[in-house]
């Protein structure tokens, strides 16, 4: 049941990315191009998503278990550190190079785009390499947000 709910959530998420135009890296780069012909659309996507999300997370914070009875796993970390800032900056550079972040890349992959496959494969390698380094240090990493 939880897997089915997840499948539906992933589907709705992907449809949202297609409808909003964010599955198209050219449109994302149009938002990141402040110095050129700027397309503010991405800000509207985030505003729409956050408007709904804010209500959902307010409700979620008051619950001890999910509607399907699962444990609520909301991030509890509050400290700002080098990992968070440096990692996010690296991500932002990669995002600016191709206009792909993880969600839209997976949706483009589903559209049969070979270039999305190249990006996703490299992204998984990047995640895997990071994972290996973390294991070698044998310090458990914080939960992903």
């Amino acid at each position: 049941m939880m897997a089915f709910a997840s499948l539906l959530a992933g589907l709705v998420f992907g449809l949202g990315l297609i409808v909003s135009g964010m599955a198209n890296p050219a449109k994302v780069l149009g938002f990141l191009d402040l110095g050129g012909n700027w397309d503010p659309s991405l800000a509207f996507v985030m505003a729409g998503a956050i408007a709904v999300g804010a209500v959902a997370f307010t409700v979620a914070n008051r619950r001890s278990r999910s509607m399907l009875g699962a444990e609520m796993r909301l991030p509890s970390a509050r400290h700002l550190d080098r990992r968070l800032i440096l990692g996010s900056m690296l991500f932002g550079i990669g995002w600016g190079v191709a206009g792909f972040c993880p969600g839209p890349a997976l949706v483009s992959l589903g559209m049969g785009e070979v270039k999305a496959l190249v990006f996703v494969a490299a992204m998984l390698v990047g995640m895997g390499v990071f994972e290996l380094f973390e294991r070698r240090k044998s310090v458990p990493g914080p939960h992903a947000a």
Partner: protein
Amino acid sequence: MSIDWNHFTPLTATSGGVLIGIAAAMLVLLNGRIAGISGVLSGLLRPVDGDSAWRIAFVLGLVGAPLVYLLFAALPKPHIDTGHGALILAGLLVGVGTSYGSGCTSGHGVCGLSRLSPRSLVATVAFMGAGFVTVFVTRHLLGI
């Protein structure tokens, strides 16, 4: 800066955003989980018993979304100008960066800001700032 009125699509952007918000709401209210794509994916690279099925299902939903969209309308074609070398570089940076920074546009940008998380606000400012600078450098300084 000038606004690109030809490509600016506030209505579809906002409605697509609302769908994304509904998806994040479904995942947290039904399953108690954060819809952060990088976190969902990287969790599969260090599998924990009983914690993989929902992740795989979520990824299948994302990848399958174009097929469902096709039932209603013709799919818009993504425009990907980036060459293969730059795509590999970008993928590696996104993979390492989202793991190191514990999240991406969905986890920090959508879910984190919805939760008013100070960490996610800082992360979003950092990746958006880096994205703005990167595009400025590649498009306007290097002319790629």
